[in-house]
């Protein structure tokens, strides 16, 4: 025995070819939306992880550091105490760094660099080694005699592993100069950064330029997905309040506002594209439903004559539209999910954007995955398409006069 649901289902398949094409268009819109959303999610997560790995999720800095010009004004005094205080309040991993404008020299050449002395927990050190070290090793914590250089900087200075490297940091508060042994070569995606990067252990950098001080303390949270970033909104104010005067705590968003802005634009952009896909598919649905109505005007006239009210007729038309969209969405959704599952193991985009992508922090490999709201958004688009596409035909159907409709010939 039938009901209005099964009647609508049978009605949409009266013209199998036309309905298949229309459902296919909706299916394609669903497929592309799901894949695009998961790709966007993967890119977001990749960029987020790359970025936060290099600058941390939160950074302690001297208040107003961007406006300060003197090295000494950028120093966080008693960095170890500040770090210890943070350690009591959060489980986040901490990187303490001292950035020093310096001059490094080999036997015959010299270059201006940004010398970084840092101390990072093993998991972050391991990641840094994996990503950036191309030869040798990083200076160990507490090692006062070793230095690692950007590979292109080492070439410019004509130094090799084991050679002596001299560092001058005039106008600072430490020894101001030192001799080190080159123990490691580093590679960075941005050649400009590679040409002016030099790494010491934190203790060595402090001895050279600012005993006991640091210029930043990074906090790294165990977040792997961009969606987890919202947790910072609650953590950040509490930690900032405990820092005391003269220090500020800024998020990666505040540290990299341009990238944060890109993050804000990505999702609306994809949603606009999805709306265009669904809009085009919706036009086909309107066409199919309206043609069906025209072809069945007599039949609708009979249905109204038998006692169907405007509400029931509207429901029949809307149901047909929703079923048409849903059947396409089901197939498109399944194909989309299968594609996402197949690509969830990761695939490289290097062929697409080459090494340039790394400069902009794009991940080398993306792992398609759906975020919590990707499927609800796609379903909402499908539902909205079905409802909007049915609106006009349903309005026409609900206004049919039975006698006129039964005389109608298409």
């Amino acid at each position, binding site marked *: 025995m039938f*009901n209005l649901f099964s009647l609508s289902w049978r009605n949409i398949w009266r013209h199998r070819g036309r309905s298949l094409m229309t459902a296919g268009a909706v299916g394609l819109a669903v497929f592309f939306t799901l894949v695009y959303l998961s790709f966007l999610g993967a890119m977001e997560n990749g960029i987020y992880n790359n970025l936060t790995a290099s600058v941390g999720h939160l950074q302690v800095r001297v208040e107003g550091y961007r406006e300060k010009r003197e090295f000494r004004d950028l120093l966080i005094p008693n960095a170890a105490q500040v770090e210890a205080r943070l350690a009591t309040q959060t489980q986040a991993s901490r990187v303490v760094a001292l950035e020093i404008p310096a001059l490094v020299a080999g036997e015959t050449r010299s270059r201006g660099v940004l010398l970084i002395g840092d101390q990072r927990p093993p998991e972050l050190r391991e990641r840094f080694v994996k990503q950036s070290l191309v030869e040798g090793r990083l200076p160990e914590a507490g090692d006062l005699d070793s230095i690692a250089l950007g590979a292109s900087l080492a070439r410019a200075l004509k130094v090799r592993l084991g050679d002596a490297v001299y560092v001058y940091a005039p106008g600072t508060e430490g020894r101001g100069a030192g001799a080190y042994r080159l123990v490691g070569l580093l590679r960075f995606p941005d050649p400009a950064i590679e040409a002016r990067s030099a790494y010491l252990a934190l203790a060595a950098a402090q001895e050279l330029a600012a005993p006991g001080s640091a210029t930043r303390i990074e906090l790294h949270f165990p977040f792997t997905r961009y969606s987890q970033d919202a947790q910072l909104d609650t953590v950040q104010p509490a930690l900032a309040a405990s820092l005391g005067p003269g220090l500020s705590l800024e998020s990666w968003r505040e540290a990299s506002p341009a990238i944060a802005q890109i993050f804000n634009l990505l999702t609306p952009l994809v949603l606009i594209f999805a709306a265009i896909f669904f809009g085009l598919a919706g036009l086909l649905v309107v066409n199919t439903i309206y043609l069906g109505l025209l072809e069945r005007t007599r039949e609708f006239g009979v249905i109204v*004559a038998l006692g169907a009210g405007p509400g029931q007729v509207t429901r029949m038309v809307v149901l047909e539209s929703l079923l048409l969209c849903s059947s396409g969405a089901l197939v498109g959704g399944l194909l989309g999910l299968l594609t996402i599952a197949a690509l969830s193991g990761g695939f490289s985009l290097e062929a697409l954007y080459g090494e340039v992508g790394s400069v902009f922090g794009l991940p080398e490999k993306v792992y398609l995955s759906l975020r919590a709201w990707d499927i609800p958004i796609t379903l909402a688009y499908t539902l909205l398409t079905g409802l909007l596409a049915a609106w006009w035909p349903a309005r026409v159907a609900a206004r049919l006069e039975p006698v006129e409709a039964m005389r109608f010939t298409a």
Partner: protein
Amino acid sequence: MTPVLQVKELTKVYRVDTVETPALRGVSLEVHPGEFIALAGPSGSGKSTLLHLMGGLDKPTSGEVWLGGQRIDGLSKAQLSNLRLWNVGFVFQAYNLIPVLTALENAAFVLELRDEPREVRESKALQALETLGMKDLAHRRPNQLSGGQQQRVAVARALAARPKIILADEPTANLDSKTGLALIEHMRTLNREQGVTFVFSTHDPRLLERVDRIVRLEDGQIAA
């Protein structure tokens, strides 16, 4: 006895641009419960228009239509739909079955619109099909049935809903004479055995021998 349906001084004028065509000119008629009435007359005499107005499918230009003691000519579209759903059964000249539904489902269609439970719908529709000798063909679609069988399903659709009155507009016009007579016999049996009130239009003189009362229409008026 209170009439199940009554029309008083009914007129209907169709207007196309500035041209007015009168279809009914002051028709008055009473239909009592259990009657089997034929509206006779040539094409264009107003038979279909009168049936449409009696069943609340259209609104008169003037006059009154009363169904089961309720005046219906001033009701809204939604009220008229509801009134037809619960009180009037229709049989049309062109059968007008829904092609994607089986005979049983077509017979149960009005009950579905009434939101009656599935078991009730099935039972009433089967009973109506059985009465019309169509039970064995209950699961066939309209395109698998002959014209006479389709029209019997259409009568079953009207009958299953147990309305106060069944209005049939030229129900035999698309059938050969033998099949048409058989259909009218079925309707007559229902009228006699179950007391179903029928008003149908026809211009076939052989069918008029089987009715209680003949209402002859000419030029939109009841002929003397």
